[in-house]
Structure formats: structure tokens, C-alpha cells
């Protein structure tokens, strides 16, 4: 069976799961539906011959699920009032997004056909990577040798995001400081 049929099946499951995640009222169910989408992405990476990415995506999906469940699944959070669904806004958004989809159809016809990529830079990496870096895993050769400067930037972004998260969580609000100073 060609790989394209498998991919179409997985993508349909992912689209249904993402719509379910957005429409279900219960927070725990929608987080689990997001887990279905992420594991579908991991499975498609496996079909598309990217085992590196499949491993990393699988682990990160589990980690993201733990963070989201730990943060949002609390009893009092479920009692948020039912926001009345504005039907007009939804219909207008769907129409506009549908127009966007139709207008972007010519772009997809100009893209290279699925299964025949443009391999201009990558041919060089494939043929010279093992000799020039000595690494058997060519993805590692690219991220840590040819494009290690990109990886340095990525580590910097991760560092900034983590420092931002820690400072957001640890900062104390003004009112709390006032209360404690009054006491």
C-alpha cells in the first residue's frame, strides 16, 4: 500500500481530533484529544522516514501532556461559566478561512510533487557529510556541525523561554507584598 494513503488516513484522524479538542467542554478530554494529534504527528514522522523526529516528538508530547494536565485540571477550574457561543462569529470565521483555503490552492499546484523533493543543498550534505564530519547520523551532523550556529540560537531561545517561565511563576504580585508588609 502506498505511503500516501496511510498519511491521508492519519491526517484525517488528526483533523477530527483537533476539532474535537476545540469543541469539547471538558478540559481533560480536550487535552487528551491534543495528545491524539501529537501522537499522530509522531506516527507520520515514522512513516516519512524521520526516526529522530519521531522519538523527540513522542517524548515531547508526553511532557506537554503532563504540563497541561498538571496546570489546568483542577476542580475549581471546571466551574467556569458557560460562555454563550456566538454563532455569527463562528460562521464568519469559517467563511473567511474557506476563502483563504480556496485562494491558496494555486500555491500548492506550484509546489514540488509529493515524493520528489528539491535536493539542492541536501545532496551536498548527503554525499559529503560522512567524510567531513565523521558522524553516521546525518541529521546530527547537520544540526551540530554544518548548522551548529543555528543550534546555538535555538539553545538561547530555549534558555530565554525557561528563564521567562521561572520568573513569571516566581514573581510576587503587588497586593501580596502589601499584605505581607502590613502584617
Amino acid at each position, binding site marked *: 500500500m502506498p*505511503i500516501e494513503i496511510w498519511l*491521508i488516513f492519519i*491526517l*484525517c484522524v*488528526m*483533523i477530527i481530533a*483537533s476539532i474535537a*479538542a*476545540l469543541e469539547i467542554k471538558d*478540559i481533560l478530554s*480536550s*487535552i487528551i484529544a*491534543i495528545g491524539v*494529534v501529537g501522537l499522530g*504527528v509522531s506516527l*507520520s514522522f515514522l512513516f*516519512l*522516514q*524521520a*526516526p*529522530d*523526529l519521531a522519538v523527540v*516528538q513522542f517524548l515531547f508530547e508526553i511532557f*506537554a501532556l503532563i*504540563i497541561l494536565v498538571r496546570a*489546568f485540571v483542577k476542580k475549581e*477550574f471546571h466551574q*467556569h461559566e458557560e*460562555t454563550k457561543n*456566538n454563532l455569527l*462569529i463562528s460562521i464568519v*470565521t*469559517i467563511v473567511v478561512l474557506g476563502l483563504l*483555503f480556496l485562494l*491558496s490552492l494555486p500555491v*500548492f499546484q506550484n509546489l514540488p510533487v509529493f*515524493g*520528489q*523533493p528539491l535536493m539542492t*543543498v541536501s545532496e551536498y*550534505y*548527503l*554525499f559529503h*557529510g*560522512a567524510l567531513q564530519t565523521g558522524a*553516521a*547520523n*546525518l*541529521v546530527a551532523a547537520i*544540526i551540530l556541525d554544518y548548522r551548529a550556529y543555528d*543550534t546555538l540560537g*535555538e539553545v538561547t*531561545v*530555549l534558555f530565554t*523561554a*525557561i528563564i521567562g*517561565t521561572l520568573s*513569571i511563576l516566581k514573581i510576587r*504580585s503587588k*497586593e501580596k507584598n502589601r499584605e505581607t508588609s502590613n502584617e
Partner: protein
Amino acid sequence: MIVYLLCFILFLVGIYGILTKRDLIKIILSIGIMGYAANLMLILFAYRNNSIYPILSEGKAVSQMVDPLPQALVLTSIVIELGTTAMLVALALRLYEKYKTFDITKIRRLKG
């Protein structure tokens, strides 16, 4: 072709969630969906028919491997995505502490 279109539809579902949902948690999940779709699209561009993963071993021809460059780009992108998700979660918790709600139409009125 049809695979690209389905992946684009997944991206549009994420945009729909950001534009119409009022719950902050749903907005964070929508941003996650958009990230998944973008990563998957890059890897779809990299696939070559009847080829193997770009890891050398005995008896594997280099000329029959998929494109390793988008894989390297997406590998770093996944990590950044998790960092930003954690940051968004922290911001949402802070907002809940101040306004006691996740509804963005009620957060909008400024106080304090």
C-alpha cells in the same frame, strides 16, 4: 498534493480556534495545533519515494535517502515549541490568579 491540502486544513483549524474561542486553555491548544501542522508540512516536503532514513549503516546507498535538512530544522523547532508552551501556561496561570477566570472577554477590562 492532497496530503499538503489536508495538512493546510489542520493549520486552518488551529487559526479557527485562535479566532473564535474565548477560553485561554483552548487558545493555547490551538497554538499547539498550528505548530504541529507547520512541522509536519516541512517534513512532507522532505520525503522522497522509495527511500530510507538519513542514517548511514552498512550496505545503505546514500543516493536513496530522504532530505535531512528539514529534519534538522524541525528537530530544533519542536524543542522551542515546548518552551513557549510552558511559558504560555505560566502566563495563563498568572492571569487566572489575578482575574479568577480564563475567559478573555472578561480579562480585557483592566483593573488594578
